[in-house]
């Protein structure tokens, strides 16, 4: 396996306001592609000024609907985050783990991921 790739949140969002769920989705998509390819991801929050749970839920929380905790732990790392932002991310991760413990939600999330995959293949 090659070394980790760096995904820069600032570059994807275009500025330091990481508040929108849609922007979080773009970050998520980059991470998910890399993890599916078996690559390790180093996610940089350099120059990020504001973070919301909505952004982090979309960017990272939803990964727990597709990947196991072990896969995420082994494949994803974060850097350039303040202690407060790390605390927020930790809460988002804990909430996501809890959220996907509900089998109905997990099943629905998996189905949506598979449907998205089909759409991508058909497009």
């Amino acid at each position: 396996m090659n070394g980790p790739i760096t995904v820069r949140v600032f570059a994807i969002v275009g500025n330091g306001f990481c508040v929108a769920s849609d922007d979080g989705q773009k970050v998520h998509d980059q991470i998910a592609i890399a993890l599916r390819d078996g690559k390790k991801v180093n996610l940089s929050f350099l120059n990020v000024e504001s973070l919301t749970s909505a952004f982090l839920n979309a960017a990272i929380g939803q990964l727990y609907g597709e990947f196991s905790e072990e896969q995420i732990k082994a494949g994803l790392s974060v850097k350039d985050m303040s202690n407060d932002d790390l605390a927020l991310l930790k809460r988002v991760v804990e909430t996501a783990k809890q959220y996907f413990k509900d089998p109905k939600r997990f099943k629905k999330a998996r189905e949506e991921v598979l449907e998205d995959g089909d759409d991508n293949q058909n497009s």
Partner: protein
Amino acid sequence: MDMVNANWLDANMCAAFGAILYKVERKTNTVNLVNLQKGVETILSKNGFLSHYGREKKLDTYGTTIEYKMFKRQEDQSFASYVEKNLVGKGIPKMSQGLRKKFFESMFEIFSNAASHSRTKMGIFSCGQFFPRMNHLDFSVTDLGVGIQQNVNEYTRQVLTAEQAINWAMEGNNTTKVGQIPGGLGLKILREFIIMNQGKIQIVSDKGYWELSDGKVYMKAFSEPFPGTTVNIEINTADTNSYCLSSEIRSEDVF
């Protein structure tokens, strides 16, 4: 609309007022506000509200207003710029760096919540006002969407009253979200912040009224429904809490 009896209007409430008037206008009506008392007219001219009703905007000399503005659901980034523009460098210098960051993030959480849950097609309205003598900063976000009661009752399959439904949404990690993206944290973070700040949250949705102040929750039912949801937060700007965590979190422990 005859405003002759309105001798005071909390400027942040322009969010709710403007939303209602917008809904009226969408039914092919023209709205005019007449007989405005001088004080009310001045503040509503300064925050840009009356610009929507054929008046000129007045200069906000003391920098205490947060402009009245309408956003589409997808305009999170515009909302972020609006917050930045309206809070930075204005007459709100007392807030510590940590408090300001928390306040920004609270406003974003409220906006995100309205954008993701309301299903509104008529936009999201916001407005704020700084009350320097009272050390309060009030900020309101209103949507004309389905309301909290409908969302919660559809999800929980219960028949909760509007105020019970708001209370459900504000408790624990409760969320009506289903699907790929988890939720249920934004309002919890907001609630924790407001308690620590000794501020206030007021929510009106349908016939329900819910308030958190002095760490306690108050609820009541109105006789008539509000056509959507409005959230008002009141921040204590004299708060000296640092909002910095005392314990260090290691990035490798996050996942």
